[in-house]
């Protein structure tokens, strides 16, 4: 790991230089929010944001992605035979990834890159990407990253971490990918500087600004059925309108649907983000639906993130504490509250009280 200090001018010229080797994405202000966009010539990432409205998930995993093309022209030899789309991904760099969002990529990778099956689309995009993170100097009041496996200066999932201090960019080069990026930005020859103490000071202040937390320590000890059968699900789901905003904005939600779309004699097989909030997600052709009720779908979302994932991969929760689902939920369902409910749920005492909710 290398620590260097870059001033505003070097930053600007570096980003501009990097564009010759990478497709560079960065936060850009769009109306009231920030979005990740490809940066054109002389366009700089706007780093004056708390966090972007959506995470950079869609850069690696587009909301709608063509998987195959086909022809249904009976006169053609390849009629009805799926053809792979050209899937060569040129190098990309995402500037300004917040540490919470950065952690989402290794979390999601466990789903797309398994010993048995490799999702070629996700993996190729992921491998072609360099993640240049931006540490948070102060948190939003919905942030709970420090109890969700990372923190405002978290490095997991990042190749470079930038710490902004006034006009200076303290730059931590974490991985070989990060080194290659620094090289192409012209920062490679910069002398290592001793800014460790300064960074530590900023980090401590940033961590102190994270005002909310979740408890996850007891999730592992409970059985899936204990939590699944807990009495609070219907009450917690009562206000939910199954709009799917939470899954749409979540950096760690990965579910998708596959659809064919034919125009004239040719068509595409594509995948689109899907959501466990929607009844059709699990609707059988027979009409039967194993998650027919709203509370069952709400339970699925939280159980997946906070219990199934934890058990399946023997890891932390499938949540990075970015707080987007809390900020954007139209009915104020709060994952922190549900997580604490699940974590503190006492099977034994519940059996005595009979179901109170």
């Amino acid at each position, binding site marked *: 790991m290398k620590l260097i200090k870059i001033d505003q001018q070097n930053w600007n010229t570096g980003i501009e230089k990097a564009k010759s080797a990478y497709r560079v994405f960065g936060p850009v202000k769009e109306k009231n929010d920030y979005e990740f966009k490809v940066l054109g010539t002389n366009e700089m990432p706007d780093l004056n944001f708390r966090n972007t409205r959506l995470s950079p998930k869609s850069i690696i995993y587009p909301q709608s992605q063509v998987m195959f093309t086909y022809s249904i022209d009976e006169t053609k030899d390849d009629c*009805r035979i799926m053809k792979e789309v050209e899937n060569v991904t040129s190098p990309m760099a995402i500037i300004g990834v917040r540490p919470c969002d950065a952690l989402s990529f290794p979390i999601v990778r466990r789903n797309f890159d398994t010993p048995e099956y490799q999702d*070629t689309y996700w993996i190729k995009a992921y491998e072609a990407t360099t993640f240049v993170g931006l540490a948070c100097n102060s948190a939003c009041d919905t942030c709970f990253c420090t109890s969700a496996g990372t923190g405002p200066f978290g490095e997991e999932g990042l190749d470079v971490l930038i710490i902004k201090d006034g006009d200076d960019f303290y730059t931590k080069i974490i991985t070989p990918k990060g080194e290659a990026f620094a090289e192409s930005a012209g920062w490679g020859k910069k002398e290592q500087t001793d800014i460790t103490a300064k960074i530590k000071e900023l980090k401590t202040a940033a961590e102190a600004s994270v005002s909310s937390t979740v408890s996850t320590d007891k999730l592992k000890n409970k059985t*899936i059925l204990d939590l699944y059968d807990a009495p609070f699900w219907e009450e917690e789901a009562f206000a939910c309108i199954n709009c799917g905003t939470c899954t749409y904005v979540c950096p760690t939600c990965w579910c998708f649907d596959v659809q064919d779309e034919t125009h004239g004699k040719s068509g595409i097989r594509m995948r689109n983000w*899907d959501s466990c909030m929607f009844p059709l997600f699990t609707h059988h052709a027979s009409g039967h639906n194993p998650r027919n009720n709203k509370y069952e779908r709400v339970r*699925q979302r939280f*159980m997946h993130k906070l219990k199934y994932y934890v*058990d399946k991969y023997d890891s932390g929760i499938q949540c990075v504490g970015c707080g987007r689902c809390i900020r954007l939920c139209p009915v104020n369902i709060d994952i922190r509250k549900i997580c604490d409910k699940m974590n503190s749920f006492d099977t034994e005492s519940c059996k005595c009280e009979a179901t109170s909710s």
Partner: protein
Amino acid sequence: MQNPYLPYPVRIDEIITETEDKSLKTFKFVFLNASDEDKFTYESGQFGELSIAGLGEIPIGIASSPVEKGFIKFTVFKTGKVTSYLHAMKEGDIMGVRGPLGHPFPWETLEGKNIVIIGGGFAFTTLRSSIISILDPANRSKFKDIHVIYGARSPGMLLYKEELAEWAQRDDINMNITVDGTDDPDWKYLTGFVPTITEQKAPPGNDDTYAIICGPPIMIKFTQPVLDNLGYSHDNIIMSLENRMKCGIGICGRCNIGKEFVCKDGPVFTLSQLNNMPKEY
């Protein structure tokens, strides 16, 4: 890196209408590229995704057995968009198959054991595959007694009628073919629901006897207590589940039951395993 979503192109070699109401047809597929057949090396109990360009994909149990070479077979119930289209396709048409997917029945565990195969309605496809595999001369000696209890609503709704009749003649398999009811005076097999026939015909449970059950939920619901009474341990009751699927490889996220994906971690589970999982199927 191999793209796990790319179907192998296949040609429909033969279509057999199985039932009198024409709702079930068996499709025999031949791989367009011979080398794809080697890649599609499967065991009884696994499934495939049948893919029709422009329509989509459907997960269907493999009805052929690995001992049958040169083709793969799937029996499909006409119910949704893809299956309805498939039922209207012709021999010679080109489509795709992905797989094999999921876990097969636990053949290593089943070696040296008695097996009771219990099926109802059209959930007899991977069971047909299993019976063909077991009865293959190279395999039959690996297993002890084989009992089959297979029921349908009426004689005309049974799948694989010729094979059933053939197996009924053999002395190395105990066939119990039943229908819910019939007015056919020539019906020479049993009459009665699957749970009742199971009660009468299945051997008692012990460590050396396994039951494989596939059927509609109502049949499973009433057969399970029968097996309990017969002394079957829940480790020895093997079931195959269905849920809505898309990817078939544990990635798209919809077919989970608790932390298990029916497609990748199943579709085969023991009843003991299911007892510790939510009932989301």
